[in-house]
């Protein structure tokens, strides 16, 4: 039961009278709150929460209240820009910009084929845009180099779900948080990254005392301060903790034998790995007292219902996928999946990053299809009416690999859509050098750090100026209606992509246009057919129903029109060899497995335990760099502040970067509150004011990653490390070494 009352929140410019309210969804975090857009004189003038939307019941995150303000920002781009011979960006017409993009992509495709072009998109676009990117990329450009900033956000979610359950798709939903006796928030500072969902948990806890909250985070975050049990482990040691917990569950027989015997495979392989993980050993590595680890194991071992969430503290740390696999293992050991109040709920960071994975814009194959299964390729070829051999199969390449390819001159055309890698990617010096090499198209409503190296800038429509759907972190698809027409000179992402396909003359095998649809709703209808029979089946959805029902979760079919609150209620998993999304990877080395290797396990509907071998961080603190550097978000800002930096209310709360330092460390270095400190890592240097207190443990510092977009700002990613997880290829942004210098 959801213990929240309706709490209507809204913000409207100067409390003006509103002509109409238009159905939409928040375009910031991954919670997916139902919103309405206030329109007056065909201008967006505000936002309100939808009171009967089950996700937010009228609430809005602090950032969400002001997300309409950037739409009306004076420095918005209203015309494409092309870099001239003097190296300056100058205004151009859409025809000039698109002709140049088409000419350049044709040149590169002719010279290098599909391996010479890449599209790097976002987790903040619409499902229809992603689907079109996937179709244009695979069947038009014939490339497998499709990635998105979701690589920094949810790539690990995808891989841990594939490895354990055969397919992407989170097993639990937000509703399960209302039922769970225990919630484990693992590397998930939900109070700052999903405040509306956090309010849902706290409301219940206040009313009933439940759930018991376990928070795993090296920082004493606002989330951790509310925990019943806070495990403030050392950076890079997530898996050491979980291996000991898994071992405790087995040792104490806190396992569901019937479930394991009937619905899982390979527990014995896991036991061989974890039986050496005593609590004492984990305590030494994690720095946690033994009794805390024992208490966590007992709570997780005895609770009747459990929801476990993960976010960047898990995904952007070493052993990222293995950490999430260990959490899946715990749920499988306990049989706590596919029933009310139970299941892993690996989160997403962005409002529609899950949707990009689902429909294939990010290098996955549409509809959770397996790029290594010829039958699945054939299905896509039939849906798109193209030749199977024209579909490049991958595996997809993450952005860090793509940077290597740019450095070597292999990628010569790079299309960057709604993301700002020249602030958000690790080891910025390298990123800039690499991205200066190819022809770069940037699609963004504003000038950003990334447009500084763009050859062409395309100004797209923003939230409220376009129609489409988004998938949140619990498989809910929400529709966003167009509230106003885009300003003159601006086109929607969808229009840009369809126009590009037309200009490129991409055809199907009968000579008809590859992109046969012309509206987002038509694209959604085509996508629904592609999704039929797959885990993410959306054939029971329509735009009309999505609006009326305030979102629906997939799978949603004629037989199951209300959608599924949770997956695997029949305890039959998506692991059959010809149904699964992938044959998986070796959980330690990341080497993709062959069909023969997968078939040898013969999972056939059973979930898989995965061996979770601890690796730990590559780079560690030492004499020259004695501190751990951690980076992350603040509640007041979104990503690189392209939008929130233009919201005066948010800028006022957090205008500049800072470094959080433990009081004892500050005393030792004679650093005072607010004093500027130099932070030096093996890759770069930043100078920011100190914020001293008990949030950080000794020997650890934290810098928010939002800064670096505007002149004179300090970017934490000048210092972070460009190492990735072997399975998900998600960068390890959460821990690198550094030193502090008093200036």
């Amino acid at each position, binding site marked *: 039961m959801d213990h929240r009352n309706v709490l209507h929140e809204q913000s409207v410019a100067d409390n003006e009278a509103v002509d109409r309210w238009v159905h939409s969804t928040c375009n910031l975090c991954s919670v997916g709150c139902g919103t309405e857009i206030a329109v007056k004189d065909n201008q967006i003038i505000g936002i309100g929460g939808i009171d009967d939307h089950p996700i937010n019941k009228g609430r809005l995150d602090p950032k969400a209240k002001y997300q309409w303000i950037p739409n009306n920002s004076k420095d918005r781009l209203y015309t494409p820009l092309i870099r001239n011979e003097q190296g300056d960006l100058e205004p151009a017409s859409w025809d000039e910009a698109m002709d140049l993009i088409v000419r350049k992509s044709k040149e590169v495709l002719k010279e290098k*084929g*599909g*391996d010479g072009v890449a599209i790097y998109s976002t987790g903040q676009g619409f499902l229809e845009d992603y689907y079109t990117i996937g179709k244009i990329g695979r069947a038009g450009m014939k490339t*497998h180099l499709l990635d998105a900033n979701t690589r920094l956000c949810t790539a690990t979610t995808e891989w841990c779900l594939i490895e354990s359950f055969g397919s992407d798709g989170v097993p639990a939903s937000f509703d399960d948080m209302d039922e769970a006796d225990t919630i484990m928030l693992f590397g998930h500072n939900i109070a700052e990254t999903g405040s509306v969902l956090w309010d849902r948990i706290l409301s219940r806890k206040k009313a009933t005392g439940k759930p018991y909250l376990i928070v795993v985070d090296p920082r004493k975050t606002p989330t951790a301060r509310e925990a019943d049990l806070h495990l403030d482990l050392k950076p890079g040691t997530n898996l050491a903790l979980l291996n000991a917990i898994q071992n405790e569950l087995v040792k104490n027989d806190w396992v569901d034998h019937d479930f394991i015997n009937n619905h899982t495979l390979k527990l014995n392989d896991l036991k061989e790995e974890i039986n050496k993980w005593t609590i004492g050993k984990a305590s030494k590595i994690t720095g946690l007292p033994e009794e805390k680890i024992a208490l966590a194991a007992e709570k997780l071992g005895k609770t009747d219902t459990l929801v476990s969430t993960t976010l960047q503290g898990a995904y952007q740390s*070493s052993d990222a996928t293995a950490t999430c696999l260990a959490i899946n293992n715990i749920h499988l050991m306990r049989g706590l999946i596919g029933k009310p109040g139970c299941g892993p709920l690996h989160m997403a960071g962005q409002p529609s990053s899950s949707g990009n994975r689902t429909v294939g814009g990010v290098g996955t194959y549409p509809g959770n299809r397996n790029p*290594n299964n*010829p039958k699945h390729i054939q299905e896509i070829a039939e849906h798109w009416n193209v030749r199977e*051999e024209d579909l*490049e*199969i*991958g*595996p997809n*390449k993450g952005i*860090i*690999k793509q940077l*290597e390819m740019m450095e070597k001159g292999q990628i010569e055309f790079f299309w960057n859509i709604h993301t700002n890698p020249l602030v958000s990617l690790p*080891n910025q010096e*390298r990123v800039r050098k690499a991205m200066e090499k190819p022809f770069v198209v940037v699609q963004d409503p504003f000038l950003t750090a990334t447009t500084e190296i763009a050859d062409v800038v395309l100004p797209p429509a923003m939230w409220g100026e376009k129609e489409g759907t988004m998938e949140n972190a619990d498989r809910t698809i929400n529709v966003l209606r167009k509230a106003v027409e885009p300003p003159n000179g601006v086109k929607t992402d969808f229009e840009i992509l369809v126009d590009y396909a037309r200009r490129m003359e991409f055809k199907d095998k009968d000579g008809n246009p590859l992109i046969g649809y012309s509206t987002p709703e038509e694209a959604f209808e085509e996508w629904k057919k592609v999704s039929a029979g797959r885990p993410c089946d959306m054939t029971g959805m329509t735009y009309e129903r999505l609006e009326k029902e305030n979102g629906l979760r997939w799978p949603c079919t004629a037989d199951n029109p209300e959608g599924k609150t949770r997956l695997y209620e029949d305890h039959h998993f998506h692991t059959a060899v010809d149904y699964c999304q992938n044959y998986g*990877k070796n959980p*330690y*080395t*990341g*080497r*993709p497995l*062959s069909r*023969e*290797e997968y078939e040898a396990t013969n999972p056939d509907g059973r979930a898989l335990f995965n061996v979770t071998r601890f*690796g*730990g*961080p*590559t*780079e560690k603190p030492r004499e020259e760099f004695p501190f751990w550097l951690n980076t992350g978000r603040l509640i007041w800002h979104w990503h690189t502040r392209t939008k929130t930096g233009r919201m005066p209310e948010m800028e006022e709360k957090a205008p500049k970067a800072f470094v959080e330092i433990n009081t004892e460390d500050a005393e030792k270095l004679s650093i005072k509150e607010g004093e500027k400190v130099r932070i030096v890592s*093996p*890759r770069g240097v930043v100078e920011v004011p100190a914020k001293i207190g008990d949030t950080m443990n000794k020997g650890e510092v934290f810098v928010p990653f939002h800064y670096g977009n505007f002149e004179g700002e300090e970017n934490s990613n000048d210092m972070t*490390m*460009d*190492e*990735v997880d*072997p399975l998900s*290829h998600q960068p390890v942004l959460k821990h690198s070494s550094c030193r502090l210098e008093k200036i």
Partner: protein
Amino acid sequence: MHAAAEIAYHLRIVQGLAEQVLDRMPVWENTMEERYVLLLQEKKESIQIILDELMENPVMNEEIHKNLNIVYKGDEAGKLLFEQWKRVAEQNNYVNKDELNQLEDNFEEMKTELTKAVTPLYEFAGGWEKTRFIVPALYRD
């Protein structure tokens, strides 16, 4: 040269290069090095299985198919790990540049040899369609 013999020729070179890298290990012991070392060992063993099979009966069979998959996919996965290990090693001045360059050359040469083996592999396996699920896209040029 017969397709099977040509494949064997390139794989032997790759095996030798993998041995050269393994002989230099450990260079900077850490989790990333351990992972790519495991992949090199696995690749070496799989190549031996393929070579033995080719000697016995030079036609495509399940064992060769499985191990070619391990070799190609393992090479791509290992190279990604090696490149990032090299970057972190450089940033931290843990390993001297000559050593790093030598190792990188070995990894590059392994990829080059595997790329050269693709054309005879098409012939051996019965066409591009049969091999494109074995050979990663970036090895098919």
